[in-house]
């Protein structure tokens, strides 16, 4: 860590306790909820998840100890490695639920698309970090980040995994907010996005379109459309959450969950299980916890002394925010059904590990504030 601090000026390592406690709470609640969600699926899942939480927690601690700027150096390497893994997934990956998302590594199967989120955040942070021009950016300046985002997006869409693929561009857009961008370019980007909507629509799979249609139908009509599959999932998920009422049906007592009415209750719909068993009180608590974590991550970004730290913190905050917002929106019947996990609640070792490493990065950024003035740090100084 050559650039962290000058000799003699090493500061005491600090631990961001509020973040740790909030994340630990989420982890404990997530594990408990998973225990209920998989009680009808396979309790083995719960034990696996517990192991991954252990691994993830330890990794996060290591990351916290390391100055985040070290990751700057390895960001491209990480990106390259994960892209390679994504290609490998398509070639020899394990298939489940009509999608090929996993790589089998001995006894464990990993989902590289989860790690891609972190790699992408580091990669984009590095590019933006190196761009210290004072003048507002134009669209041309985003060409490289856009290409780097598009590669994993396309690879993940091939799996197919629309939900995860959606997260990558959202991370890019969110992180771009750190930069000064010409207003015209922003408008142009939005215009282009709107114009490409029909193209996006036509590239959707039949079942995905059906989900979008049923969502709008259910939002704007009182008709019960629970005949089709997609609407069935949304309807049952809403029934689960709604029937939790104020205080919930109690741990392990959610009938929608226990009797198999909530689809994918341990992967995509754990919030439905939570809402059913713990009611509005539980939902509010969970929403508050996630809100706190996201805001706190933004606070870490705002207080970071270096561009890279701020960018990474924003990226992690964006990753958490979009996951929570999309997943809960889907469970509550506000968004179409796309497979987006709920951080720390959904079953999946890779996502637990990726999210906890993300938290580790936040802790590292909070802990390793540069001794030197932030302006003094940059590519010109050998980074």
């Amino acid at each position, binding site marked *: 860590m050559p650039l962290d601090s000058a000799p003699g000026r090493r500061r005491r390592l600090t631990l961001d306790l509020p973040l740790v406690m909030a994340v630990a709470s989420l982890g404990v609640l997530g594990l408990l909820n998973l225990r209920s969600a998989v009680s009808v699926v396979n309790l083995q899942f719960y034990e696996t998840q517990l192991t991954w939480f252990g691994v993830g927690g330890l990794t996060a601690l290591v990351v916290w100890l390391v100055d985040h700027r070290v990751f700057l150096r390895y960001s491209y390497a990480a990106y390259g490695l994960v892209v390679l893994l994504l290609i490998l997934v398509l070639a020899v990956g394990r298939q489940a639920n009509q999608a090929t998302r996993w790589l089998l590594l001995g006894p464990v199967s990993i989902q590289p698309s989860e790690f891609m989120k972190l790699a992408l955040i580091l990669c984009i942070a590095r590019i933006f970090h190196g761009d*210290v021009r004072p003048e507002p950016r134009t669209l041309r300046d985003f060409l490289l980040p856009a290409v780097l985002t598009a590669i994993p997006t396309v690879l993940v869409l091939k799996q197919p995994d629309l939900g995860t693929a959606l997260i990558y561009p959202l991370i890019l857009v969110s992180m771009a907010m750190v930069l000064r961008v010409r207003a015209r370019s922003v408008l142009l980007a939005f215009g282009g996005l709107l114009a490409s909507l029909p193209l996006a629509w036509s590239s959707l799979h039949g079942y995905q379109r059906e989900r979008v249609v049923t969502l709008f139908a259910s939002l704007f009509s009182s008709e019960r459309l629970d005949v089709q599959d997609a609407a069935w999932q949304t309807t049952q998920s809403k029934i689960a959450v709604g029937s939790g009422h104020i205080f919930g049906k109690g741990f392990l007592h959610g009938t929608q969950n226990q009797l198999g*009415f909530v689809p994918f209750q341990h992967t995509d719909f754990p919030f439905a299980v939570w*809402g059913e068993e713990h009611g509005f009180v539980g939902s509010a608590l969970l*929403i508050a916890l996630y809100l706190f974590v996201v805001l706190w991550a933004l606070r870490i970004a705002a207080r970071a002394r270096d561009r890279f730290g701020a960018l990474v913190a924003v990226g992690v905050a964006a990753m958490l925010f979009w996951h929570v917002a999309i997943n809960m*929106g889907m469970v509550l019947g506000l968004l179409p059904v796309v497979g987006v996990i709920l951080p720390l609640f959904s079953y999946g070792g890779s996502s637990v590990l990726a999210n906890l490493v993300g938290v580790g990065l936040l802790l590292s950024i909070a802990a390793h504030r540069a001794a030197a003035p932030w302006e003094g740090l940059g590519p010109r100084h050998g980074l």
Partner: protein
Amino acid sequence: MAPLFGPPGELSEFRGRFRWVALFVILVFAGLLARAAQLQIFEGYEYVERSRHNIERTREIPTARGVIRDAEGQLLAYNTPAYTAYITPEFFDIAEDWPTVVRYLDLGPERAGKLRERLTRLQGLKRYQPYPVAENLDDRQLALLTAHHAELDGLSVEEAPMRVYPLRQLAAHVLGYLNEVSEAEIERHRAEGYRYLPGDRIGRTGLEAVWERELRGTRGRVTVIVNAKGVEKGKDPFGAAGGRRYEIEPVPGNDLILSLNARLEAIVDQAFRGHPAGAAVVLDARTGFVLAMYSKPSYDPNAFIQGLSRADAQVLEQNPFLPLHDKTAMDHYFPGSLFKPFAALAALEQPAMLEPGDLFDPAARFRCEGAYELAGQRFRCTKVHGLVDLHEAIVQSCNVYFFQLARRMGIDRLAQVAREFGFGEKTGIALSKEVPGLVPDKDWYRSRPEYGFQYRVGYALLAAIGQGNTKVTLLQLAAAYAALANGGYLYRPQLVKEVLYPDGRVRMSFAPELVRRIEMTPENQRKLVDALRGVVEAPQGTAHDQWTPGLEIAGKTGTAEVARRRRDRVHRRRDQRSTEERYRERDHAWFAGFAPADDPEIVVVVLVEHGGYGGRYAAPIAVEIFREYFKRIAPR
């Protein structure tokens, strides 16, 4: 929030922007919270209700149909334990799993196709009611389904009693059979407050149909908790039903006790050996209760329970002897000479009606020369009887004597007496599809275009000997002969003696039902009974061949013309017709009688379709029935 302002430059600028980013995040999460509040607080009760609706399933508990017993307690229809495979269409994957089910259950292509269609239709209704696809599973099928139960969502196997008719063909027309209830019937019965489900069996014909509501019983109901695949998870595993459970115990159907005697039924069947088609009725002459109702050929109602294949049904429908017809009540025939006692009584009871100056004297004799001429038309007799009085005319079945009577009385008097004895109207035995028969009178002929709206005296002559247009059923004849035998008490034929609750208590009990008392003097009745005895006992009697010492049978033979004689003669010359055609032009053979003649217990009416001469073909059957009845059923 933390201080967002820092050193100048781009980074500090985006620190300022964080306020807005944070605000955006807060707004989105507030939106989620608001939505959660909407679902969980404001619409919470509705969703609680819907989640309960998801898991609560009302399960029907089958009931047992009442049994039918004969007068001696022998079972005529009962239920036997059997296993039925059900499919709940909503949980069943027709495209994927149906071929497997077809293979396991050995369903033929015809039945498989029909069932698949039905399941597909039911799937749209979302009623979550199991539909029976195969009944009476054998051990192999049961083992297969039990073993593969887990792979076939929506399939279940339940114990469901099967209806069994141990007598098979015997009394099949009386008992009737069950088959599947139609959607229209379900609706109709629902309107009347009776619940049927698709796949239920309903009494289709005979007593099973008439007494459906007594026999059926009431289903029970229980609310159980099911998972998303419809698999039952007990009564309330999560306390979710909140103690709300509706349980209604099933109530078994009531039992019928018939007056019918299964052993007598078998005796009748035995007596009909060698004859392809015919019918017989045995009544208790003192009460009108039916002891035997027999129609040949018959069918096996057990085959109908599982739904007859189209081919089998066609065989039954195309059988020229009409096995599905109950010939005792669903068909009517010319009574032929069996009508003569009633014609005689018409004269005996009201001689004043006869033409003035030609006062009828029962002792008077008419000369029979083998035929009777009226307005240039010849009405034939069976043979030349010479001088006969009323007694001899009945004993020897002389047509000419009755032509003379009819000529004097006119058709309306004949019709009047016939109607008094119940001809021309349904007996009301409470079996479906009974026909009334026909008793023509002057007005009837005057209303018929085929007779030119004209009445002729010749029609009365034919009516007196049970030809022309007089049509009767065996049941009517039996009731009328019973009335002749017992001195004028016309009883309604009845089959059911008692209806019992499942625990054996009597729910209904039926007494003999007198339709009317027919006026006749004891002397006249005596005269007729004597004449009917003479038919069997006198040397010239038409059934004298069948005279059996110890059996005091009074009766009458009859031969009902089926084809016109004239055409018959033409045909006889060029004999290229098939055996069946010739068979079908043969006369029906009749016998009706009662015994013992002095104190009548039973009435027997026998019809041998296309049997030929009544004294030769029908009388032996009747006499065998009498003989066996007094030997085995009611020994004296």
